[in-house]
């Protein structure tokens, strides 16, 4: 049994699917990273993914161009995030509540919208043809390397983009003036204000970028991963992304690692639930359990570090 399991897991196919499964979580998690760096909680990632996913399919269908779908999803993601920002910053709605409102729109509003736009119930069915899916790329040289090629080549454009964004996000946060401002606003808004940084403007920018990431994650889900939109599609990935970010200490690279861990748990679930005699329900618990354990482990490590740094101070 253990041998079978190891064989099932450590092969090129599995690692390929690990990357594929991680990508949407990573997009949303990067969205959570940029928001958190600016001191903004974006719990609406889940809803943004759902709505963007639907619009991605619709835009692609209307124009018969996949990249218009992806761009449309991105724009819708930004607009929704700005809406959360508007209610939170201008009208002083608690930002967690504003996010939950967007999640409600994502859960029911999408079904309403779909039925309004197309008359379809609960999924986009045959709207998405093969040509409208996000295309995959074979990387010329890597493709021909035996195992590595199978794992790394042949992914969707957006999969590569997700991992590229990890680096871009790091550059943005640590190598640009905007990133410096974002971090300043997140760490100490008063200090940022005192040196003439507009906290609100920076937070708007951050949440807009956060929405863009979630929008791309949504497009990935409907236009590649599940090949069409359906109402149970995002399945908590937006929430998982929040957990992955907390576990990754809000840093791009750390968040990528925790997203991979989460993808691993989910890929395992798919594999293991195929085995006879294993309860698919209990296997489904793994990703969520891993998240809580990860959060706890991280929190303990932080605590120990703090203790080491200042032996005099006692834990709260």
């Amino acid at each position: 049994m253990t041998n079978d399991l190891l064989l099932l897991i450590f092969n090129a196919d599995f690692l390929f699917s690990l990357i594929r499964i991680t990508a949407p979580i990573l997009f949303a998690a990067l969205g959570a990273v940029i928001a958190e760096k600016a001191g903004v909680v974006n719990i609406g990632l889940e809803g943004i993914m759902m709505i963007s996913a639907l619009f991605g399919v619709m835009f692609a269908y209307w124009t018969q161009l996949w990249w218009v779908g992806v761009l449309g999803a991105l724009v819708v993601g930004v607009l929704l995030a700005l809406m959360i920002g508007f209610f939170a910053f201008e009208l002083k709605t608690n930002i967690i509540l504003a996010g939950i409102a967007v999640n409600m729109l994502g859960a029911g509003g999408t079904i309403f919208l779909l039925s309004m736009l197309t008359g379809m119930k609960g999924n986009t069915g045959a709207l998405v043809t093969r040509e409208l899916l996000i295309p995959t790329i074979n990387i010329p040289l890597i493709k021909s390397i035996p195992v590595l090629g199978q794992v790394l080549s042949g992914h969707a454009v957006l999969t590569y983009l997700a991992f590229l964004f990890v680096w871009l996000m790091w550059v943005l946060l640590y190598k640009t003036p905007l990133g410096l401002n974002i971090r300043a606003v997140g760490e100490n808004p008063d200090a940022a204000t005192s040196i003439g940084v507009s906290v609100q403007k920076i937070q708007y920018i951050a949440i807009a970028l956060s929405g863009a990431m979630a929008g791309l994650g949504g497009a990935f889900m409907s236009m590649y991963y599940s090949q069409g939109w359906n109402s149970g599609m995002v399945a908590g990935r937006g929430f998982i992304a929040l957990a992955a970010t907390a576990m990754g200490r809000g840093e791009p690279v750390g968040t990528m690692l925790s997203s991979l861990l989460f993808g691993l748990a989910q890929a395992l679930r798919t594999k293991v639930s195929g085995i006879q005699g294993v309860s698919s329900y209990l296997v489904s618990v793994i990703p969520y359990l891993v998240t809580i354990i990860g959060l706890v482990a991280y929190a303990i490590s932080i605590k120990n570090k703090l203790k080491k740094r200042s032996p005099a101070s006692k834990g709260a």
Partner: protein
Amino acid sequence: MSSDRRLLLFNLLRGAAAIFLALLVATALIFLSSKEPLTALKYLLLGPVISFKSTGMVFNTVSFLTILAAMTPTIFSGLAVCVMFSASQFNLGGEGVIMLGGFVGALLGIYLKLNTGLHQVVCILAAAVVGGLVMLIPALLKVKLGASEMVTSLMMNYIIMFIILHFLNFTFADRSKGATQSFPFEATAKIPEIVSNGTKLTWGLVIALIFVVIIALFMYRTKWGYAIRMVGINQSFAQYSGIQVGMIIVLSQVIGGMLSGIGGSIEMLGRYNTFLWRELPGYGWIGITVAILAKNNPIFVPLAALFIAYLDKGCQLMSINSDVPFEMIDIIQAAIFLFFAAEQFLAKYRQRIVVRNAQRDLALQEAAVSREGKLS
């Protein structure tokens, strides 16, 4: 006194404006999407309490009682959210704990043999204890390790759901039935109807209303309730004034868990005969809407729950009798959420009231001072 009343009046009007705005959004969407917008609106707004007959419109008592019955679980989830949000604990685990409370209540209702009366009490108490214990997890992780209760409670919802489904499928399933469900509850465990007319309006609603009073007294008449509200308003201030903040954070979430557990078990034993929830029941999220409508004040929870139950029924009827889908309810709820919780919504007017009151108070004060001056 009159200044307070004016602010209260303002708050009520502002709430009404938010609800009006949400319904306006709904109306606009109905007119945009429906071929029969007037029929849709009629069923959405009036359908829940009025039946349309060829002879005219009649008050529909049965439908009204069904709405009252639907309030029961959301009163509990609303109260739970009130307590937790009052302490600024954004614990979103009500959803899972309600399902768990229903499951615990169901199992004890099936396998325990007790006299009626005692049986229900044992089921409900067990669900309360389990609910409270489960909420200890996010609460303690928050207090001891600083892990966000929001994230852990969200993850817990899924864990609870899958574990329940596992046991429902592999241990407690009634294999003689086509669908996955448990064996039926003992008659002794069922929560009886107030009027036996099929509306499923049970004594659960009465219990819910009693809990409204208990929680209202707890929040506004005990030092624990005061401490919970203080922690919510200003945690550092609460700490400096000697409140054990960590303990209060745990307390608020455990109470939230107990209320959710009770709500789940009462809903299950009142309106069902077997356990057949295959997914999270959704009452936890509705509880958040209810708490927002009630402004975290337990006394207003029944009113808010009534409103949501009415709206839910209206949307059901609308989707049956017209071409507008039921999911409209989520859009209305989201709009209410955004505007109702918006502190700055219509804030200019509040500002004006506050300024006017302050000016009047100042004038009165000056008058009093000058009078005193004359006297001496």
